[in-house]
């Protein structure tokens, strides 16, 4: 991959580079600070948190808050910790991300390579879906889920998350495929390749970067959702954010901040891992299309 600024970099002096590095490190501190506060305080006993300095390292290290958040903290009536809710979230997130990504890819394919009259209007209408505040769709969505018999089930949550992710996934894929040479498609069609064959054999193999972007975006949004999770789940489908919120937001009780922070990091681990592992592809994917005007 060509990096245009290489030549610029070579010409900047030692002094300038020192400033650049200082600035970058300074901002790294700014971004890391809240995570550091959470991490350090999750390793302290509660007394030390009450009295101490929030930035100081623990005097007395303890992993008890982590154990508690994972397996013994009170989430509802039973002291189960966050453990049982992880699986619910995974069973909800994986299909929802997969479905919205596949549909988004096909929509992008149609909207760029099989253009029809009014396709821009269709796309514009789909794109506007990204911007609807979720609070206003709560009650009517509940009604529809009730009519479909999906109220309080994981498939119901999957459906809702898929629908409200379609705008973004379609946007990502459409912008990506827009840059894809149409000549290749034409050639394949003349060779007799069908609609789906072209998609599978030609577009899909080169869609890696944009799939990464879409998956990251969707995974993060759905994993972190609280409103739908609390409203459309029932006993067997409570997702992790609702459990975490129950842990953190109890109204009248002792607040065990160390357990809260440990729980928060635990609940965020899947998204953190996704970001760190695929961060490199993320920028590459954005570059390849998602931000193109």
């Amino acid at each position, binding site marked *: 991959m060509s990096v245009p600024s290489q030549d610029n970099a070579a010409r900047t002096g030692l002094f300038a580079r020192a400033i650049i590095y200082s600035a970058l490190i300074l901002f790294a501190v700014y971004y890391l600070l809240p995570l550091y506060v959470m991490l350090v305080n999750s390793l302290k006993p509660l007394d030390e948190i*009450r009295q101490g300095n929030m930035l100081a390292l623990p005097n007395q290290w303890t992993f008890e808050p982590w154990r508690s958040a994972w397996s013994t903290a009170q989430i509802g*009536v039973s*002291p189960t910790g966050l453990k049982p809710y992880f699986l619910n979230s995974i069973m909800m997130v994986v299909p929802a991300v997969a479905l919205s990504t596949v549909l988004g890819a096909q929509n992008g394919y149609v909207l760029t390579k099989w253009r029809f009259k009014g396709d821009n209007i269709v796309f514009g209408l789909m794109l506007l879906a990204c911007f609807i505040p979720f609070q206003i769709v709560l009650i009517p969505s*509940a*009604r*529809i889920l009730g009519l479909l018999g999906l109220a309080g089930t994981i498939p119901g949550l999957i459906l809702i998350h898929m629908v409200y992710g379609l705008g973004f996934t379609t946007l990502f894929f459409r912008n990506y495929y827009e840059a894809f040479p149409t000549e290749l498609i034409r050639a394949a069609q003349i060779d007799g390749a069908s609609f789906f064959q072209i998609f599978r054999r030609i577009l899909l193999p080169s869609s890696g970067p944009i799939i990464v972007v879409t998956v990251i975006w969707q995974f993060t949004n759905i994993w972190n959702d609280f409103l739908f999770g609390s409203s459309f789940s029932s*006993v067997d489908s409570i997702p992790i954010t609702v459990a975490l919120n*129950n842990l953190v937001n*109890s109204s009248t009780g*002792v607040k065990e901040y160390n357990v809260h922070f440990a729980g928060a990091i635990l609940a965020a681990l899947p998204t953190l891992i996704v970001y760190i592992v695929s961060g490199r592809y993320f920028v590459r994917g954005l570059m390849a299309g998602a931000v193109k005007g």
Partner: protein
Amino acid sequence: MLRKLLIGTMLSGAMTAGFAAPSFADEVEVLHWWTSGGEAAALDVLKKKLESQGVTWKDMPVAGGGGEAAMTALRARVTAGDPPTAVQALGFDITDWAKQGVVGDLTDIATKEGWDNVIPAALQQFSKYDGKWIAAPVNVHSTNWIWINKKALDAAGGKAPESWDELVVVLDKMKANGISPIGHGGQAWQDATIFDAVVLSLGTDFYKQSMIDLDPAALNSDKMVEAFDRMSKLREYVDADFSGRDWNLASAMVIEGKAGMQFMGDWAKGEFLKAGQKPGTDFVCIRFPGTQGAVTFNSDQFMMFKVGDAEKKAQDLMASDIESPEFQSAFNVVKGSAPARTDVPDTAFDDCGKKAIADLAEADKGGKLFGSMAHGHANPAAVKNAMYDVITRHFNGDLNSKDAAAALADAVAAAKG
């Protein structure tokens, strides 16, 4: 086709889903927001008891915003036609739901067990709608308490204040002793909790006229201006960092002696007990000066939804277990509140708990048991929150007392309309 579906949805959105999804017998699904250690463990007693009777407890906790998140979820559940069996609810929210025609009927079991005779009438006002029992009250919290650090009180003369003037004297002494006299958290509901007590201290009739009857003449009156003046006075004794502080951190200030006293409902007691403090020796519980003999309360109740015949049995059993004296005692000892029925022995309770039970009985007899405005037991949510806005703006110095009284009357009028 699509349009038809769309219009159908919009119209049917207007309906109220008064039917239950098919479900299995002998189970109850319970939506609540008791998720912190103590209270959840207390609720577990109920769960275990039901399980011993062959009823499965399906737990659906949604915490946050003092029940606001749970009420949001409940709307979705009811709209989807899939309401839980029982829902923790407060005050006027119960009445509001009853108006939608979606709640169940506990009258049979209530009559059989004679609830009418043992549950105070002020609570029944919320547990019943249209003459029918619709909810099972779990507890009575009273909100006009002061929790005082004993050492700080001793250093300030040692006598618990019994009038407004005595309170100011004690606060001044505490200030002179170099501590923050009042431990307080600047959140709208906490400001309103103090306001409740202050209004009540200006007379039980005044409380009833202004907070419950919403009489415009009482809301914008000289007395109300005085109430706001008292709030301003109390504001002088609160430390500078109070804004946004959680109530339990304010309790911690009192426990540690950094603050002298806290005005808070009796759930605060749990914080003191958990810190190893003993009532009478480490901390003192008194009624807000000028409100002795009267109680402002809030009561957690389990509101029952319409269910099929099969589930009805389990629902009745749950309601019956909630009202059993053993559960009332076991739960409320942990929760810090008083039992919802007046015939529960107070032997298991500590001194503050015994006082709460006695005060409650006295206030009930004397007709001085009032729903707390701050906790949604004096007026519906729209009015309550409109009052919050004014109280909290005044407490934060955005309004003077005279304007605040006028704004209170205006806000209530607007919220009612």
